[in-house]
């Protein structure tokens, strides 16, 4: 699409990415993306999840190889084989997951991998302290890493990249682990680094932070550049939001609305603790009726995954009540919930929904093997014929039923998983990112299966990051942000823009993600 044009007043460009293509099996992550970053500037890379931001930056940082396209750093063309190549050309990335060693000191973490064979601790600590002081990064080089907060660890990651003398720093969603005051501090630090002649690429989807910190912005959507090098000073926030979530939606032929029946799933003030030890979501209440698909929209990491886990019984809630078809199931085990008609299509297909090292047959019978027993044995013929039936009915393209499940493509994995879960005629279906990463036919097949469920009277809850999908498929739309339901919309009448703003709302900026 639009290629970024370098601004007229631009100084030297530090990064030029031209027509970058990158395809993963079944997914085009980058389709001819362009990006131009000026020296001495902080450049925001905006886009929804799945827009291709991280892929593009992993290409720039040497983690991925582009299928085609050109990477230029300071005017020179490069083809990075690995992150070390990128670093030696001056490109360093601070990833979302920190790569630090808890038992090492700050200084040791910083020099790790680039240290001379003999380390003079005192010398290294002094050097690190000098560098930290120069950019206003307040860390104690001698402190062991495990004592540091997430915000401080991020500073260590930034110092690590600076230590390797990166001229271009990529920060992947750096504010998700920070408190609001830390975000302001980060802005100042980045400004000092830019003034020192470096360029910073700031990946984000939180608009208000970006406008305070960044000079320019490039917006990606569905693997393409929709706007390049916008001047942040003159671009309105809702213009950016519109660019990120897309223009007025062309609503596809919506399936006929079913008449909802009695409530089958009801959440009353439900809360749960996330893996980081803070509330992943709190005080969530809603109902899903028979014959209804309710969509949960939101940027990943705002409590949706935990919500699905709690409903499925794989995570404990610490407050509130969960009612299924009139029965309180808050304290009922995951297996019992399944038996009483709750199907769960988890986000992590191969790690939760399927057993990656076992065969296709073994995975197909996961929900029914208890009924296929004769004495202690599982009757092999029953297992095989069940698997063959599932494969046939749900259009799974598979070879040997005794072959490993991991050899199937993403779409076929998901067909098998969804088919297996829906085979028990569930009354409630919870689907978490059911179409993510699938190719067009796969997406269509899964969506049709979920619609069939709705039409046959099940209550369906669908979590997705794809707003288009939710707007075309669901009967009601809830937006989750910061672990809270921010609003309920009628997808037939709501504008994409309205939902987009609710998804990105920062009325209560949260320190968790």
């Amino acid at each position, binding site marked *: 699409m639009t290629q970024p044009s370098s601004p007229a007043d631009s100084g030297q460009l530090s990064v030029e990415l031209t027509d970058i293509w990158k395809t993963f099996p079944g997914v085009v992550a980058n389709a001819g993306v362009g990006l131009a970053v000026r020296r001495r500037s902080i450049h925001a890379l905006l886009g929804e999840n799945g827009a291709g931001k991280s892929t593009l930056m992993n290409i720039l940082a040497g983690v991925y190889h582009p299928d085609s396209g050109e990477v230029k750093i300071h005017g020179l063309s490069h083809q990075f084989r690995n992150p070390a190549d990128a670093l030696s050309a001056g490109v360093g990335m601070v990833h979302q997951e920190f790569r630090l060693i808890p038992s090492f000191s700050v200084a040791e973490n910083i020099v790790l991998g680039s240290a001379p064979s003999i380390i003079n601790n005192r010398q290294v600590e002094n050097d690190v302290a000098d560098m930290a002081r120069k950019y206003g990064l307040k860390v104690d080089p001698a402190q062991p890493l495990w004592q540091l907060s997430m915000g401080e660890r991020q500073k260590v990651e930034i110092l690590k990249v600076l230590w390797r003398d990166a001229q271009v720093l990529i920060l992947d969603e750096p504010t998700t682990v920070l408190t609001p005051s830390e975000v302001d501090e980060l802005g100042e630090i980045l400004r000092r680094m830019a003034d020192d002649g470096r360029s910073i690429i700031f990946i984000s989807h939180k608009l208000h932070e970006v406008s305070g910190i960044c000079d320019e912005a490039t917006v990606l959507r569905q693997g393409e550049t929709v706007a390049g090098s916008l001047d942040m000073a003159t671009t309105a926030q809702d213009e950016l939001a519109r660019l990120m979530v897309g223009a007025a939606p062309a609503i596809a032929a919506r399936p006929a609305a079913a008449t909802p029946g009695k409530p089958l799933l009801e959440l009353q003030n439900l809360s749960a603790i996330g893996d980081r030890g803070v509330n992943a979501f709190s005080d969530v209440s809603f109902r899903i009726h028979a014959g209804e698909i309710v969509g949960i929209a939101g940027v990943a990491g705002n409590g949706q995954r935990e919500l699905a886990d709690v409903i499925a019984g*794989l995570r404990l809630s610490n407050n509130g009540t969960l009612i299924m078809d009139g029965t309180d199931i808050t304290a009922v*085990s*995951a297996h019992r919930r399944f038996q009483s008609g709750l199907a769960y299509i988890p986000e992590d297909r191969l*790690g*939760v929904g*399927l057993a990656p090292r076992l065969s296709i047959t073994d995975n197909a019978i996961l929900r029914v093997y208890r009924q296929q027993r004769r004495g202690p044995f599982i009757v092999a013929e029953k297992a095989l014929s069940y698997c063959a039936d599932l494969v046939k009915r749900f259009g799974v393209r598979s070879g040997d039923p005794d072959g490993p499940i991991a050899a199937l493509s993403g779409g076929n994995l998901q067909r098998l998983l969804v088919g297996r879960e829906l085979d028990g005629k569930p009354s409630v279906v919870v689907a978490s990112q059911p179409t993510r990463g699938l190719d067009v036919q796969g997406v269509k097949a899964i969506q049709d299966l979920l619609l069939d469920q709705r039409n046959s009277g099940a209550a369906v809850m669908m979590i997705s990051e794809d707003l288009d999908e939710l707007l075309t498929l669901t009967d009601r739309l809830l937006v989750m942000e910061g672990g809270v339901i921010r609003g309920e919309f009628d997808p037939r009448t709501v504008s994409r823009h309205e939902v987009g703003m609710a998804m990105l709302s920062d009325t209560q900026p949260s320190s968790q993600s």
Partner: protein
Amino acid sequence: MKRPRLSLREQPLPGGQPLAFGTGLAIALFVGTLLLLGAGHDPLRIYSRMFDASLGDPDAWAITLNRAVPLGLAGLAVAIAGSMGLWNIGAEGQIMAGAIGAAWVARIGGDWPGLVLITMMLVAAIGGGGILALGPAVARAKLGVNEIITTLMLNEVAIRLVQWLIHGPWKDPDSFNFPLAPMLPDQARLPTLFSRAHFGLLIAAAVIIIASVAVRYTAWGYELRIAGSSESTARYSGISLPKKVLTVLVLSGAVAGLAGGVELAGTADRLTETISNGFGFAGIIVAALALMRPSGVAAVALLFGAVQIGGQSIQTLGVSSSVSTILQAFVLFGAIGAGVFSRYRVTLDSGPASTPEEAKS
């Protein structure tokens, strides 16, 4: 410039593991040749002696099979735990615990009929190994304590217990003050099948077959494999993980204990400090080479036994026992190394054309 790269095969090469084992053996023989030549020996003579002593005639086969029995049972013990992703590093101690249990029964039941006595000894051996594994099993199942550490540490406890018994309460009064337990009564010895091959061979074969069938074809084994593939998937499908961990680790210990009982009644004839003879640790290697599949341990144990017996035999030719140990190590290295290639393919990657910038750096 072309540089080799490893990339994961979508499916492992069929028959990759036997192939890997053969390759490992070939590498070991080649390196061994150099080693023997360097030490001034005639490799051909050494190798033919090794073969004759381990697989050359029925008597040699009997000795090798007797060695393969504890190796196979210990390997099975490790593999059962490994099927679920657990590491039982304590088979060495559990073998000793099993031997203690069997020796204790032999002491109190010296006048029982042979069949009853041997049966009770083996039951006690199973119990001994299981009891030693019970602590780590409970700690892992209830508290999530890493079973590698706990099972490993209990090895030390078991060896001290054996030492205390044979230096103290169980010392043979007729041993001229040597730290030896008394010989087993005759009816406590396992009968022989042919030559010196004892009945333990059938016991081990039966246990390995039962375990292989159980893991592959029963609902219990299915749940075990699900849990070994992904704990989250097991929880998702309603499998009780703590219960599974507990039973599997205790069972693993029980199988290792049985190895101790069989070794005592079949080969050792009395409780000694060296009753476990490293079988528990070798069992880890056996299980690893069998890719943690119970059905694979028998073949691996047989080969491993042959290498051990062959290696010991050449000491009479003036070759140091270290040489045989080194040969074993190379078989292992070679097999594991070659095993990598059954799962990965090597491609020559014509790296991206380097820019002048890169050529400089």
